């Protein structure tokens, strides 16, 4: 996988190294800015409120 990627990158090896770094930074950026924020809300450790929508009429408007 990574071998194939390395062969795919153009130019001499310093250019390949540079391009690899750019790719790594791009992947990290996509994860930090879009992927992780999107999936974080489904993580089991991210709860801080008490469950609502239970038989408490005043609180049923609240989404858990």
């Amino acid at each position, binding site marked *: 996988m990574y071998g194939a990627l390395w062969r795919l990158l153009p130019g001499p090896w310093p250019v390949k190294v540079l391009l690899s770094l750019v790719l790594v930074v791009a992947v990290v950026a996509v994860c930090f800015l879009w992927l992780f924020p999107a999936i974080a809300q489904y993580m089991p450790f*991210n709860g801080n409120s*008490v469950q609502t929508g239970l038989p408490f009429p005043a609180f049923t*408007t609240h989404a858990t």
Partner: protein
Amino acid sequence: MKGLRWGVRTLGEVLITIGLLLFLFVAWQLWWTDVTANREQAVAVQTLERTFGPANLAERGVADPLATLTKVPFGEAFAIMRIPRFGADFARPVLQGTDHDTLTKGIGHYPGTAFPGQVGNFAVAGHRTTYGKPFSDIDLLQRGDVIVVETKASYLVYAVDRHVIVTPDKVEVIAPVPQHPGAKPNQAWMTMTACHPRFSANQRYVVFAKLVKRIPRAGGLPASFMAVPAGTVG
């Protein structure tokens, strides 16, 4: 044979990649969310201070200041919470709503519960870890500790009464009279909920505080209320 070797190598590389991505996610959740949330929440507090500020005193002229706080749009910041026990400069925005998005931006107010200073229960939730972790040290709060909620009209000074640790289904902690669902309130309470234990969502650490003083904004907040209690670590 060659195909098998290729397969094993690729599988190994995929597994290593997944491991790195998981590590990256942990780093993002535990470190990066704090970095961005702290910055955003500080900006939100500054914005609130500007809107609350003396420059806007004249245009207020509201007979019943609390009346203006009955309909806050979902996700909007409407108050600043200051907790001297967490540090003299501890200030966080309070926003309407307790969904995931809102809680990444500050402390969330349970819609349907009372607003600051009103009779009933001003109930809020905050992160114990990640996203700026406003309630990181909620377990350090002691009986009598002051919590100041700053709104456009006044400083509402609450004093910590007690805490409980409950499972997340115990909604009676945010009842108008905390822990007495159905009872008719005649006092102004505040309930703060955060996850417990830290890094887990199995339980909730819940603090109850009672309104002890209501100070009009015009006079400013006496510094004595923001004095950091003795015995505060860090």
